[in-house]
């Protein structure tokens, strides 16, 4: 199991679209994926979990991956957050 921190940089934070893109990216991998913020951790395949995490602009989250392709998954998901989920601002 490995993990890495990332800062939410898109203006809208983890809103509907961002959460959907996060899940879709995660679905490309076989490993288990979780996202943690503060003392709450959610399954990163749950759109409702992701949204209620309260990951707004500027908050720090930790991506956690566990399984065969955990390295690739971690890199891809941290990149996605840093690239503002592909959003302009």
């Amino acid at each position: 199991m490995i993990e890495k921190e990332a800062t939410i940089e898109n203006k809208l934070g983890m809103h509907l679209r961002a959460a959907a893109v996060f899940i879709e990216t995660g679905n490309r991998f076989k490993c288990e994926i979780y996202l943690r913020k503060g003392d709450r951790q959610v399954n990163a395949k749950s759109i409702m979990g992701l949204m209620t995490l309260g990951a707004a602009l500027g908050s720090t989250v930790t991506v956690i991956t566990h399984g065969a392709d955990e390295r690739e998954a971690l890199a891809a998901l941290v990149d996605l957050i840093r690239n503002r989920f592909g959003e302009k601002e």
Partner: protein
Amino acid sequence: METVNKEYLGVPASPGICIGKAYLVGSREFQVKKTKLTEAQVEKEMARLQAAIDATRKEIQTIKQRVGQEVGFSEAEIFNAYLHILQDPLLIQAAMDQIRASRINAEYILQEIAKQLIGQFKDSPDEYLQERATDINDVVARLLRNLTGQPMDLLSEVEDDVIVVAKDLTPSQTATMRRERVIGFTTDIGGKTSHAAIMARSLELPAVVGLKNLTEVVQNGSTLIVDGTAGIVLINPNGQMLAKYRHAQQRMEQWSRKLKKLKGVTAVTKDGYRLTVAANIELPEDVRQARKYGAEGIGLFRTEFLFLNRRDLPGEDEQFEVYQMVARQSLPYTTIIRTLDLGGDKFLSRLGTTTEMNPFLGLRGIRLCLAHQDLFKVQLRAVLRASHFGKIKIMFPMVSCVEEMRQAKALLREAQKELGRRRVLYDRNMEVGLMIELPSAAMTADILARESNFFSIGTNDLIQYTLAADRINEKVAYLYNPLHPAILRLIRQVVQAGHNERIWVGMCGEMAADPQLTPLLVGLGLDEFSTGPAFVPQIKKGIREVNFAECRELAEKVMACTTSADIEALLKSLMKNEVLHDSIIPKT
């Protein structure tokens, strides 16, 4: 027991009257029984849930496709989120696990889990998350329908003409509704900008929203009257009410035939005095209504909708697109854009503003914009840019003193310079006006007129602030009277102050839409009336039936009266104009 002839008040969302049978949406969905399963039934139950999930996925994909084709790709995107909710382990995996562990039927477990999840969203302090509760509700309702084998998409299968009665209507429901059978809407929640309200207006169906608990008191098949103009719903009306509303409906139909003839006429008095009748709009698509009813331009384009029901603030480009579209569609007429008029009670968690003890006397209108200049300048630049593409005038709300007007104009000049540096084109001669809606502004109209290209009197706030009476408060609502001599004096003073400085004076409050007041307002010297689109023909007609000279005499007589009752009696005795809609003069 059945409710009889009971009246419910909500928010008028789409004008018109309809009479028909209630069709409750979502009422049956949550009557779910709890059943204990045997060990042997558990696997079967999980397979049954899986089948319902698959069926629901297909349904949502079909709707997504249809909306994508009919409405647009971005509107269809919401259904992607629905598909994710349908796979969410917090819902599906949890339900599967609990069926196995507790050996209870799928419907019951699903509903219990959903209740909890929806509760979490509803309790969130974040407005955006609160609204997502509707999305989850919609997906779960579909799942439950598929599980219980109830017919899918009830709204697509209605046979008779019905009035849809719902807690709220979701995009997936209105997208699949059998439109030719639905004659009106009511919803328990929502305001003028909620999805159901916008949909009703674009379909031109009468609708009332924000009725709180109507779905709990209406039964399927009850007779309903929906008055979308007044915001009233009547359950099981008695013969007298039915007759009254049928009559009103007939008159409206006759009226709409007359309307067609009035559409192209100008608002000119018998003795040749020319006025302008424009429309107030709230949403960009309302321009269509304004044109249909023959409005000569937009006298008030409210911009609040851009800022509500969202998490972020609208950017310059987004606002520009909206303003230029409205302005272009209104050509050859003028569009008056009112800058943001929100109070501390609305959206300002995003600006870090705390709750106010008395929001009506707090940081609202121009005060808020001057306190958050970055936000204000984004809007000013967007309006300026749009001014290149149509005839735009700008006006500021809630101005209480000339300093505020000067400050707002200074910021407008800054915005012009910024655009100049970016080499962006804008109308250098765009007129700048203000709303007169505070007694302090009305009393100093002579001072403000020197800083302004026009005035528009906002009567709703002017009356409330002058008479210190809240119309919503039943105990003092009787004091809220547009015919109070104080109000009429203020109006006269504002018009005179404007005319002394050679600027025009309009009115965009509800008084302007009251046909009983038209002769008086003409006599007081008003140059422009701006009303809801549907009221435009009535006001035009009223103007065409009077003589300016007689109206001035009437105004003189009215100004000599000492009580609003005397004034009202005088106006009623002169009322020749055939009245389509109710007057706001209190009924005695």
